[in-house]
């Protein structure tokens, strides 16, 4: 198998190198890629969409259809992970582990027995999880600021690098941090699986709904200038607001999908014990 791999790799590598000799030199301003389509974007973005960050403008407005399908790719990855891994919850009794907070003694109860939630016993995933008070409190302090930063990244996608995807992933990462530092049950109790799944679909439908709204207002799909009538603002800033709405939709969709994929992969579908 190695020899076939080597032959294929050498042949494709030779083809690619043979073709790369014909490329325009790296980083020269006169290359066709930099002189045909991108000057239009650089010069016209400020006039047509009043969004300083050209990448966000091209991402959400000129080529907004691509980004909608990209959000659909993320959404379908979340649905595939759920579809493949999730084992429907059968309430069979499970072995539970508790730790006595003061003495640090860990108890393993036979199946079906529970200790009612009380201050001096904390439930743990397995006997070997060490008491990590420092990590837990550290993360509890850190998570709100991560989420604040994530919201800033989504909202500020117009003026600075960032936008729906980056902000959504940062927000998702804050919940995943909660799931890793504490345990999966607290994260699932904080954001239940049903809420995440519906939030996923809501995020993508905000994006597609904005496009469909433009369709209903007698313009082509995803043509934000149609929103000028609804938002009582001139078409250019309507485009900027359209981009913001779309970024929020992408942020919600990516946030929910990252948590959904993490929950399914880390617990292999049983939602009992995460990382």
């Amino acid at each position, binding site marked *: 198998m190695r020899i076939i791999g080597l032959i294929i790799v050498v042949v494709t590598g030779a*083809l*690619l190198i*043979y*073709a*790369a*000799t*014909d*490329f*325009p030199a790296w980083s020269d301003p006169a*290359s*066709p*890629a*930099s*002189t*045909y*389509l*991108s000057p*239009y*974007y650089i010069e016209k973005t400020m006039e047509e969409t009043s969004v300083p960050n050209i990448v966000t403008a091209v991402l959400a*407005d*000129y*080529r*907004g*259809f*691509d980004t*909608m*399908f*990209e959000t*659909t*790719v993320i*959404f*379908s*990855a979340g*649905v*595939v992970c*759920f*579809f*493949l891994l*999730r084992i*429907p919850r059968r309430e069979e009794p499970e072995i539970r582990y508790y730790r006595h907070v003061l003495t640090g003694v860990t108890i393993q109860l036979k199946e079906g027995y529970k200790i009612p939630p009380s201050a001096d016993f904390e439930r743990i995933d397995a006997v070997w999880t060490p008491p990590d008070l420092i990590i837990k409190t550290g993360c509890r302090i850190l998570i709100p600021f991560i989420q604040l930063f994530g919201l800033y990244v989504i909202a500020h996608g117009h003026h600075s690098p960032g936008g729906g995807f980056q902000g959504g992933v940062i927000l998702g990462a804050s919940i995943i941090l909660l799931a890793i530092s504490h345990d999966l049950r607290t994260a699932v109790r904080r954001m239940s699986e*049903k809420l995440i*799944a*519906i939030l*996923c*679909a*809501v995020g*993508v*439908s905000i994006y*597609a*709904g904005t*496009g*469909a709204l433009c*369709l209903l207002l007698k*313009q*082509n*799909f*995803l*043509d*934000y*200038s149609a929103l000028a009538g609804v938002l009582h603002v001139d078409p250019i800033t309507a485009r900027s607001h359209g981009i913001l709405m779309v970024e929020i939709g992408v942020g919600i969709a990516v946030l929910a999908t990252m948590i959904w994929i993490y929950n399914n992969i880390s617990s292999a579908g049983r939602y009992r014990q995460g990382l």
Partner: protein
Amino acid sequence: MNEQYPALLVIVPLLSALVISVAGWVNKRLCFPIAVAALSVSAWSSVGLLFRVLNEGAIVYKLGGWPPPMGIAYYIDYLNGLVLPVVSIVALLNLISSKKIVEQQFPDKAGPFYTLYVLMVTGLLGIVVTGDAFNLYVLLEIASLTGYGLLAMGEERAPLATLNYLYMGTIGACFYLLGIGYLYIVTGSLNMVDIARLLPPLYQSKAVLAAFIICMVGMWLKMAFFPLHAWLPNAYTYANSASSGLIAPLMTKVMVYVMIRLILTVFTPAFVFSTLAVSHYIVWLACIAIVIGAVLALKERNLKKMLTYIVVAEVGYMVGGAWLGNRAGLTGAVLHIVNDALMTLCVFLVVGNIVYKVKGYAFADLKGLFSKMPFTMGAFVIGALSIIGVPPTCGFFSKWYLILGAIQAHQYGFMVALLFSSLINVVLFFRVFEIGFYEPFSDHEGHEHHPAVMAEAPLTMLVPLYVVAISLILVGLYTGDIVNHIVQFVIPKGFM
């Protein structure tokens, strides 16, 4: 209303997929009706689009209101006007017959299944209708990802087969992306028609040659053309019959459509057939694909794997026909996309019915099926005759155009391969008929001589099957009209 058909075609299934995903959590029974409604709206708008193309010629739909090179545009001409209704109708028919299968195999995951199903149809329709090269890559990824999800829910070996499919599929999609990158670095544009306008002065450049080779290898990998077909038989065999009923007829045919779109629109036949005089070798490769596909099908002892090898051979037909380089060959290839999608759907629906009732698809399970499931096996006979290429059915006519093209292009090897694989198909299918018809009476130790009680598949699985079986014959009879009104305009005038 009807100038918004291109948008409705893709947006309605996308929005309904989201609604189905939410309905899966709220109230499971709503999922199937929404899916059927969504696919029928997209089928309706695709047929409406075909008639609009017949009246007004090519349609350009500007997404987001931006003119094509700046924004993304849909470009609908005769080629995808013909393929669109086929994709949506095949998906709708398979959806109707998959209701019972889903309830039997994974009743609690119906919501995600229908979401992935409708998302895959959205991806396929988007691939067929888009006019932007990079947008085609994103839709290709949606169709592949949902395809991996659908195929992986099946027997015990399904995840491993799907993971191998994932590796090959990702390499194929990334090669396509790389080919578009090579075109972008040399021309600076992403819109297909725009690239075709900018390419002619660059025909001699090595980068365009490499871009063409990489795009082609990527597409061949995705359509399982001969040397790169290793993933297809296992991936389609071990999947559940609802998913293989959707993916087997559509995925490879849409990839063949993308290859023909690259040849006709992006790289223009002038570059492909005259500059690159390589079509002779590719037709020989197609001959080998057909022969190997047919021979490997003989080796198989179960029905579904045999059919997957026939799909590999059919891909050899279409690629060989497209690369013959003349009008008859290309007509045969385009017609074969339509016919083969219907034929493969008919045969895989039959397998779905058999697996639903008999819970197995090995030859041993097919004993006495003609008496147990007469209607299903009746449709199987029509599908088999169409794959073999018997006149009233559509399989014959597209094979006729392919052979005509082979003779005109003096590719006698391709003609011999076509006839050889037809004969092998005869052997394959009549072997199955023989097991289905004569087997129960000839086994001596079996004492029960009373004819087996008729255990037919439920009605919701038989009606789509018979709609497809009848459409095989209708499409065959109306081939003349299809060719004169639609396929004739697909091929540019300058083509000899």
